């Protein structure tokens, strides 16, 4: 038996913080797309309205906000027609929160598969974000339809060059949800109590983000504090580019953009560091 020293892979007990193996993902693109497809196909099986829920859910929420915050409580929408204002907040927030809650239970929900077969574990959270991205695109189409109606009525300005930056904002929101979800996925596997508290924290987080109120309300002594929540500049950026608003607090936008990348890098490192060892626990 000739001894050769050209090994293709190695398994050892060390932990690697920075061995991300992202290069392995393209080889598994077939599996990635299949997982996205599974997510989209399986979710609406045996429902009457099927994929229409993708549109129905934000529309119903939008109408609810319109009744509560538009007519009863009367929260300002900063001169933007309330319906498109709410819808923009809702689809941004939902995209983030669906990415987050879809990825933060990665290890718990996939323990049966992870215990039997190896493939890059990152594919699973990645597929969740991509499937949510598809839903987001459908919802964006609805949003622009509504926008068009208001434009014809002369209630909103014409689209500007800013629209070209919208995909970047959407991408950033998804990456942020992914990053936070990756960090949490390791923790939810180790500490089951997190299940309950996270639902609560996620709801609080929504109220702290400008979903049904304009970010300009976040001023005053502690306002800056809420601007540190990356979701505030991200949702605000969506509206700024969409409705051709003027930008103040430019610094916060750059900070949010950087924070997303840092959280994502931390999330990937933490996830990769624990992706195998967590399996012995779940």
């Amino acid at each position, binding site marked *: *038996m*000739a*001894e*050769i020293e*050209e*090994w*293709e*892979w*190695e*398994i*050892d*007990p060390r932990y690697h913080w920075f061995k991300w193996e992202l290069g392995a993902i393209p080889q*598994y693109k*077939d*599996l990635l797309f*299949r*997982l996205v*497809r*599974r997510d989209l*196909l*399986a979710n609406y*099986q*045996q429902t009457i309205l099927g994929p229409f829920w993708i549109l129905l859910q934000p529309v119903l929420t939008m109408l609810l906000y319109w009744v509560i915050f538009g007519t009863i409580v009367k929260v300002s929408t900063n001169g933007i027609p309330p319906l498109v204002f709410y819808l923009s907040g809702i689809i941004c927030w939902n995209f983030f929160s669906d990415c987050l809650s879809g990825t933060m239970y990665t290890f718990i929900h996939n323990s*049966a*598969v*992870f*215990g*039997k*077969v*190896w*493939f890059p574990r990152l594919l699973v959270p990645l597929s969740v974000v991509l499937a949510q991205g598809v839903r987001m695109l459908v919802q964006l189409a609805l949003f622009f339809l509504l926008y068009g109606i208001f434009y014809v009525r002369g209630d909103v300005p014409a689209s500007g060059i800013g629209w070209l930056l919208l995909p970047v904002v959407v991408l950033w929101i998804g990456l942020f949800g992914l990053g936070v979800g990756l960090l949490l996925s390791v923790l939810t596997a*180790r*500490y*089951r109590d997190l299940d309950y508290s996270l639902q609560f924290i996620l709801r609080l987080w929504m109220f702290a983000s400008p979903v049904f109120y304009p970010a300009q309300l976040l001023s005053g002594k502690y306002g800056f504090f809420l601007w540190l929540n990356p979701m505030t500049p991200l949702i605000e950026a969506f509206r700024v580019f969409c409705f051709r608003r003027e930008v103040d607090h430019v610094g916060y936008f750059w900070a949010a953009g950087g924070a997303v990348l840092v959280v994502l890098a931390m999330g990937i490192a933490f996830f990769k560091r624990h992706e*195998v*060892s967590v*399996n*012995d*626990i779940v």
Partner: protein
Amino acid sequence: MSQLMIKVEGISKYYRLGTQGSGRLREDWSNWWKSVGRKSARADASSRGEAHIWALKDVSFEVGEGEVIGFIGKNGAGKSTLLKIISRITQPTQGRIRGRGRIASLLEVGTGFHQELTGRENIYLNGHMLGMTRREIDSQFDAIVDFSGVETFLDTPVKRYSSGMYVRLAFAVAAHLTPEILIVDEVLSVGDAEFQQKCLRKMKEVSGQEGRTVLFVSHNMQALRNLCHRAYILEHGVLVEGGPADRMIARYLRDSQVHFLRQFYPEPALAPGNDHIRIKRVELIPAYSGAEELIDIRTALQLELEFWYEPPGVSDLIVGIHLFALTGDCVFDVSSSRTTLDKGLVKCGCRIPANFLNDGSYYISIVFVSNTTHRLFYFESCLAFEVADYREHTSWYGKWIGYVRPDFKVTLEALNPDGYV
């Protein structure tokens, strides 16, 4: 065996038992705190006397290209842990493994099957998870469907499948994998007997293909014997021996199968049985042929049985002797004639002649029946023994098949020395 595919060096795996749940946060914190102080959590846990096991201890071996290797051992010996480490599902505590080539691990069939999706969707999903590319599945799709025999239900969600169909479809995908290294853990123990045979044939075909390396764990010794070139015996996480599969399997069976040739109970009260039958003595007396006390195919065996008998009313008695092979197949079922006996001690005897049983492991159960149909007592697996092989005047060393090897004459003679007419 041209080049090395896998080199396993000093692999150990440590598991901590218990301590799941509430105290984890505090424990993690204190472990982390100690690890900052350069004291390993593991040393600490064992010094505190916490429950832990070494599932594997210092396991090393090498696998060459095209080899089919079997792993033998009792449950909990570490076979599955070893395969999981090589499949990258769990991490070793010590040691390292290096290798070449794409690995597909089949630790169960149907991994990742989604209940709501159709058979067609699941073939792709499962195939991709096992490492097949889209092109590979496309080209094998018809063969997979054909093998599974579920083509009429291909567009039905698999949750509507019977469990048999589900398993057949799942195995069909697995059987068409084409990696360089295939890792298989006990997947053949699913499905009905006919399908198992089909799987075994397919496994043999797959492992015989050019340069396919296979690591295989099974409790089916016949399957191991059929498929593997080499085998390793694992005991309590330690690799005790490795060598030709036949020899390793024989050794494992001998070690795990204690000869159990005699049971004796002087007191009826302590003896196995019931109101009607109490066993006093059951014994298998070999007529050893050589100086060695070894039961081989030339050894005749005398079965002797003594029992206390109390007939249930007016009845007769039949004593039947069932001889089973280790696989559970019954080799023979012989019984006494119907005999009416009074209460008291009864003796029963039976002779298994020499040159009758083939080599292998066997066990005996004894059944007591009254009035032809009413079972009084079944003394299950009361004796066990192993028959070793013995051959003279032959140059063939393969496994002699069959449970019996009777000394019948088979004749052969020339009828027409001049031609074929």
